[in-house]
């Protein structure tokens, strides 16, 4: 009857909801509600509720083979010694201490850890601190809130904060891709029209920053904030996104995930080391990403869960599940939360790897101190001036555009009841779609038939909350037909 109970944080997004994971003596996992947690009062979204599946599902993991941890570490070290064109990626999907350990290995290799967010390198460094999060409670006090995200799907535990703000008479405007029930106004406007929003220093702009965020979108909002005094809350997608981006020392030269994958494709990266970051899950086009990764000389994965990249990796160093790890997370509001787990398999493995590579070993305690020092170091915010727009890549315009609505299920390739697309009523009527019928979507990657749901959205837009094989990027031009 003995169970182990872990106090931990949901890895679904940067909100960092607290929860308990129960593990029985057969290893079966279930969730329980951590009601005194100030971030979420124990409440969880659809993804949080499905965490037992997240922790137990996935592709075959090399570490399931009897081959020992020592063997994997020796193999990784042998491949890394003398390897050229090495790149390392940790998007922040594990503890800050493991990220710090990964940084130590990068130092030994004379390399750097990238967090996969290219927008940082495209912005003046003095802007970076303005993209750090802020307390969620401040949202509740704002007199006006402008949303450039869909909180219901992307950051669900933000909804209750927005509803609380509404009860406090805040005016909520959605400038996102679809109409939101909680918004007082749903606007479809371009950056040139942002002055219509009427923002001031009591307003909050909510957007997000993830591996596929267009730096120009962030620039527009930083400029809007500069002009109006409105604060920016930048939501982030992974459990330690906020922490690792604060810890990261290479933001000005940081490589985006797409850029890294492009370099892998072109052969400019020949060895890729991943810490709980799976490009196959994170990139919009699964097949293309697998093809690119197969070109690498060495693909080394350090991972706490079974994810598709484990299947094609040369070495997998398999660590304990996130909830069992000792470690710290920083959520989007800058709150530090600690796991009750004491597992240090990941840290010890990276310490041994560092030793094999000819450098010093390290321990959890040292890394934790370093993490706390980095996270509690309140740097001074220096002002920034108006930022010029960057030259934009070709946008999909005209016709129909299929767009990814990035959300926890999509980032982690988790099954959900989301095998349908969102379209507006005009599209349903013009294509004469039947209730319960399907819509046919065709891109240069092929054709797919999907069920649909009606939402208030601009004409020509098709949203999907799951990755589709016909997508070539976050936005893809498609042809549509009724069927």
């Amino acid at each position, binding site marked *: *009857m003995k169970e182990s109970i872990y106090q931990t944080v949901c890895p679904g997004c940067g909100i960092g909801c607290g929860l308990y994971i129960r593990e029985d003596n057969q290893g079966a996992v279930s969730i*329980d*509600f951590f009601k005194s947690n100030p971030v979420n009062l124990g*409440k*969880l979204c659809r993804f949080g509720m499905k965490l037992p599946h997240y922790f137990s599902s996935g592709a075959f993991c090399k570490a399931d083979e009897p081959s020992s941890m020592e063997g994997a570490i020796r193999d990784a070290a042998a491949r890394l010694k003398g390897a050229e064109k090495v790149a390392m990626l940790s998007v922040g999907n594990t503890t800050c201490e493991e990220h710090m350990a990964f940084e130590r290995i990068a130092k030994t290799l004379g390399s750097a850890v990238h967090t996969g967010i290219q927008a940082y390198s495209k912005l003046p460094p003095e802007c970076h601190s303005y993209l750090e999060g802020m307390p969620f409670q401040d949202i509740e006090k704002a007199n006006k809130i402008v949303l450039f995200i869909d909180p219901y799907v992307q950051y669900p*535990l933000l*909804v209750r904060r927005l509803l609380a703000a509404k009860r406090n008479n805040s005016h909520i405007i959605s400038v996102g891709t679809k109409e939101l029930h909680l918004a007082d106004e749903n606007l479809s406007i371009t950056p040139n029209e942002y002055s219509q929003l009427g923002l001031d220093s009591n307003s909050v702009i909510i957007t997000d920053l993830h591996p596929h965020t267009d730096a120009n979108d962030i620039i527009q909002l930083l400029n809007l904030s500069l002009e109006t005094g409105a604060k920016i809350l930048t939501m982030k997608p992974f459990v330690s996104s906020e922490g690792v981006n604060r810890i990261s020392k290479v933001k000005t030269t940081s490589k985006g995930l797409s850029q890294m994958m492009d370099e892998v494709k072109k052969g400019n990266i020949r060895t890729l080391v991943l810490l709980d970051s799976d490009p196959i899950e994170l990139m919009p086009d699964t097949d293309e990403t697998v093809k690119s990764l197969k070109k690498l000389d060495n693909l080394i994965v350090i991972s706490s869960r079974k994810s598709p990249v484990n299947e094609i990796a040369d070495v997998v160093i398999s660590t304990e599940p996130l909830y069992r790890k000792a470690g710290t997370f920083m959520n989007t509001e800058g709150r530090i939360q600690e796991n009750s787990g004491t597992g240090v398999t990941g840290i010890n493995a990276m310490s041994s790897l560092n030793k094999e590579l000819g450098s010093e070993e390290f321990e959890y305690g040292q890394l934790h101190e370093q993490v706390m020092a980095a996270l509690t170091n309140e740097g001074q915010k220096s002002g920034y001036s108006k930022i010029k727009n960057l030259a934009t890549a070709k946008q999909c315009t005209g016709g129909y555009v299929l767009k990814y609505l990035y959300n926890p299920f999509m980032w982690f390739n988790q099954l959900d009841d989301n095998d349908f697309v969102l379209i507006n009523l005009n599209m349903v009527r013009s294509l004469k779609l039947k209730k319960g019928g399907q819509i046919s979507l065709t891109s240069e990657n092929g054709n797919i038939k999907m069920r649909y749901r009606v939402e208030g959205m601009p004409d020509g837009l098709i949203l999907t909350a799951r990755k589709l094989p016909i997508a070539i990027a976050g936005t893809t031009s498609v042809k549509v037909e009724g069927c």
Partner: protein
Amino acid sequence: MVEVGDRLLGYATDPNVRSKGASGGLVTAVLAAALEKGLVEGVVILKRIDEYEAVPVITDDVQEVLSSGGSMHAVPVNLAKYVVGKKVAMPGKPCDVRGVIEQAKRNSVDLSNTYIVGLNCGGSMHPVLTKEMLIKMYEIDPEDVVGEEIEKGKLIFKTKSGEEKSISIDKLEEEGYGRRESCRYCDVKIPVSADLACGNWGVIGELAGNATFCEVMNEKGKLLLDTAIEAGYVEVRPADEKSISIREKVNSAMLKLGDEWKEKVFDEIPDKDRLKYYIDQFADCIDCGACKEVCPVCSCGPDSKCTMFHSLADNYKMSMYHMVRLLHLSDSCIGCGQCADVCPVDIPVTTIFRRFANPAQKNRNYMPGMDLKRPPFLEVMLK
């Protein structure tokens, strides 16, 4: 030997258990004796993390049971689901007990294997709101609190420095603090469907604060208490008329207060607005499914009516999930408040469900979770 129907005052014989207990440690001692003497294989206890947080665990360690005494008013869990399929003893507020009875009607719990030591309940509070209340209303640092108690309509907090501060529950609730909304209109305060019904109402004089009023509700209750007495874990004596009448009086007063809350919360919605009310209430639902997961009376498992008829691709203005649940739970919802507690978008799910279920249950003079005599009015009773 005690008899069914006995009303007793008792306490744990172990002074540590007695002093740690909420009112004499009888409940802890009874649960520990049931385990020690092999009546059950495990006991459900609340494992304390701090003053405001505890996790339910099942233990087969008598020492762990003995150290689990004390009532945690700011831990609003429901324990019913933790006992499903197990031979255990558990403490339980009326809503915990009613949840177990509803599970038993559906053969998910075998009552002959489950021993329930019921606790009277005036209500429980949300931990985060309680901390906020301590700072704003009591001007106490939540970290300094070492104990809390409800006495004579007042909520009392004790601090590390030995200070005690009390504020009337009415005042707290006026300010939006105090008991959860569902507790304010909860209609069972003494868990008469448990095997033993224990509480501090009616414990007066020198025993106040260090003895428990215990009513033996049935044969299993008699066995529980006899086992604990024989093992030397508890001592009991008959309660006098004064104690008995005080307990009755407080219970009646609490139920009357609950009725007043019901009047306030369930104001009449005209027929023409009723559909709109339900649609509007659920408009921000993010389909997390938590309200089903926690529901102590739901025994459908993952393949249930409400989820199987529901798809996120649907264009219904109110989801099939909620439509089915409103109807399906109208004969079993006990108003425990768990669904509202876990709703990530703060929908007052309990109030909505009670609004739907209240007339259905009242018209049939049916209260779920009270006994196994009457079947649910929408279902065949499997038991």
